[in-house]
């Protein structure tokens, strides 16, 4: 009886053999390794600062309203919107990290902390790479990872591909679609930015150009814990705007900057380098692995898989090679009936 391990070993050997055949072949049409994409220069995103988050869930409520999503119940009385994770109808969720006595906020041991889970709008998104049609797209200007239900064939490759588990399928709906944060791009034309950032009472979720947000995040990391600093709320103004140039894309808002105490940050901006960078950045006082943010290399899996796939399928090489190999095997295994005695027949 062959074990699963042996089966997999066999499969790998087979793949290697095929690749060996192909490396010779691909010398004819060289396929270059795909580089990890970088963020667009004017990429938009969010900065989530877990030390500022008070867990009021106003962002979750606003997200539901902005995206016209129904509440989801996980308690017996069906009173409150209580999703357990991002779903086809919940694009944004605040989760709580709990440890021991949960006495202090933003402490890893015997503490608690909040973490926002929504699409990170990767510079090089796996979901866009995995999508066999063009339902998942990355906007070349804003970098928003968008979804088009009219093009979607419902294969849910994006659900499996995302390292953060963000795109989710609406399994409860016979005509379901993928649900994910699209940075409220449908509201941008009316001068509104992401609803979660618009309502956040403490500026824990901040909207802006990712380049500006990254600079703001680094500014916070450089501050001493306990020091008093200015925290912007809502939308982070760009350098040009701060010098008086109005950005007409967004509707005018009063300045909501306030004074607050600097938290004890982990010296890392999550999303700065992960998979080539994401447009949603995160700051936290509890190590990111403990609050559900995976450790990812700077080289995106989309780049790796596309390099392999495009090498294999470049110029239909692998299909031809496999067809050839199959033909040879078939040819060798075909037994003519010549050596067996004639038992009669039509001839």
């Amino acid at each position, binding site marked *: 009886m062959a074990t699963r391990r042996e089966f997999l070993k066999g499969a790998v050997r087979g793949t290697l053999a095929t690749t060996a055949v192909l490396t010779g072949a691909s010398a004819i049409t060289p396929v270059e390794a795909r580089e990890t994409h970088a963020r667009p220069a004017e990429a938009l995103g969010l900065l989530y600062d877990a030390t500022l988050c008070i*867990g009021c869930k106003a962002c979750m409520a606003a997200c539901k309203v902005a995206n016209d999503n129904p509440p989801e119940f996980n308690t017996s009385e069906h009173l409150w919107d209580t999703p357990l994770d991002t779903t086809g109808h919940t694009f944004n969720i605040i989760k709580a990290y709990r440890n021991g006595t*949960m006495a202090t906020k933003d402490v890893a041991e015997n503490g608690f902390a909040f973490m926002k889970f929504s699409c990170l709008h990767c510079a090089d998104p796996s979901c866009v790479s995995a999508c066999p049609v063009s339902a998942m797209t990355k906007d070349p200007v804003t970098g928003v990872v968008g979804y088009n239900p009219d093009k979607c064939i419902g294969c849910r490759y994006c659900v499996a591909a995302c390292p953060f588990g963000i795109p989710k399928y609406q399994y409860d709906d016979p005509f379901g679609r993928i649900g994910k944060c699209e940075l409220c791009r449908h509201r941008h034309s009316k001068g509104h930015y992401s609803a979660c950032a618009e309502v956040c009472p403490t500026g824990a979720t901040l909207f802006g150009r990712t380049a500006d947000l990254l600079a703001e995040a680094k500014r916070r990391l450089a501050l001493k814990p306990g020091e008093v600093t200015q925290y912007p709320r809502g939308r982070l103004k760009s350098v040009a705007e701060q010098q008086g140039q109005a950005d007409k894309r967004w509707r005018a808002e009063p300045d909501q900057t*306030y004074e607050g105490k600097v938290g004890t940050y982990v010296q890392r901006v999550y999303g700065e380098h992960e998979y080539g960078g994401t447009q949603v950045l995160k700051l936290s006082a509890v190590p990111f692995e403990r609050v559900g943010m995976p450790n990812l290399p700077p080289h995106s899996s989309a780049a790796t898989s596309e390099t392999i796939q495009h090498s294999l399928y470049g110029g239909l090489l692998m299909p031809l090679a496999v067809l050839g190999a199959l033909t040879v095997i078939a040819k060798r295994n075909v037994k003519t009936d010549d050596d067996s005695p004639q038992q009669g027949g039509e001839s």
Partner: protein
Amino acid sequence: MVKVSLNAANQAAEAVADRLEISRRDFLAWCAATAGSLGLSPGAEAAIAVAMQQARRPSVIWLHFQECTGCSESLLRAEHPTLERLILDVISLDYHETLMAAAGHQAEAARKAAMAANKGKYVLIVEGAIPTRDKGVYCKVGGHKAIDLVRECAADAAAVIAIGSCASWGGMPSTDPNPTGAASVGEVLGKPVVTIPGCPPNPYNFLSTVVHFLTFGKLPEVDKLGRPLFAYSRLIHENCERRPHFDAGRFAMEFGDDGHRKGYCLYKLGCKGPETYANCPSIGFGDAGEGNWPVGCGHPCIGCTEKGIGFTKPIHALAELKSVTPPLQYARIVEEQGAGASFASAAATAAIAGAAAGGAAMLARNLGLSHQAELAEAEKAKAAKPADPPQGG
């Protein structure tokens, strides 16, 4: 438990109503309201009515130090029709600098006389902070320093109640740089006292505390800061009428904007409701009517009852949420979904799997058998017709 017959309560009500020249109905309504603010069980209003009728009139000595007399004013200007008459009827206010008719040496003599006559039985109420710097020279009444007066009067008091934020925790006089070294009554006496913080506190919170003392002979339960639990155990944020706007993320951005006019949450304007313990959202502020408490009329709470917040934190500064310890309704970072297999479902699945496996095994065996049987048939046929010619066409 409170057990007083309704009959006795009714008789008591008649007597008190006659004495105060108010209607019996008004008096009983007041008793019920007081029992309500104390959070007492039904029937307590009867006990209160009887206690009021007995009119023991305990002697009360009311000291004023570093304050604005706002607490006294709040009490006197209470909207409730019988409040000021009752407070003056149920207690014998022997010394109160604003209200007493006596002046000068006569007033001092009244205080000394009351203290001597009711030794160990009088109630001491302190309004205002007490300066402690430079041996407490910054506040003197009748030639005596505040710090000496409070110690002298507290020595033989049955109960000490600090009214207002100044007496409770220092209040505005103790704000940085605190040039007079203003301190609370508790700090000066070195022992915990009942505190009714607020600037001014709701008169009901004070009155209910006094009535509790008169009715049950002891002060109500207090928290670690000496605040009666019936009034100060809940954050303003918890009972605030604007709370739904907070939960939905609807905030007033600046005074007079659209959200402000619509009555949205004032958190972004610096409302201290999330870090201030007081019952203002339930019974209003200063007995001026429930719709007229600060948050009700559109001003953020300044946290006047809370040390380190009122008069210390700027009004526009953002409040810290004291009530966030993650309750169950926050999803965990990794949330296990589904309830797992029950015994019945596991048994049913096992039975189906077993049946399927058994069926498959039997089928496989029979397949082999039928093949063998086929072969056997063929052999038999061969044996029966050995000379059969090959079929052909």
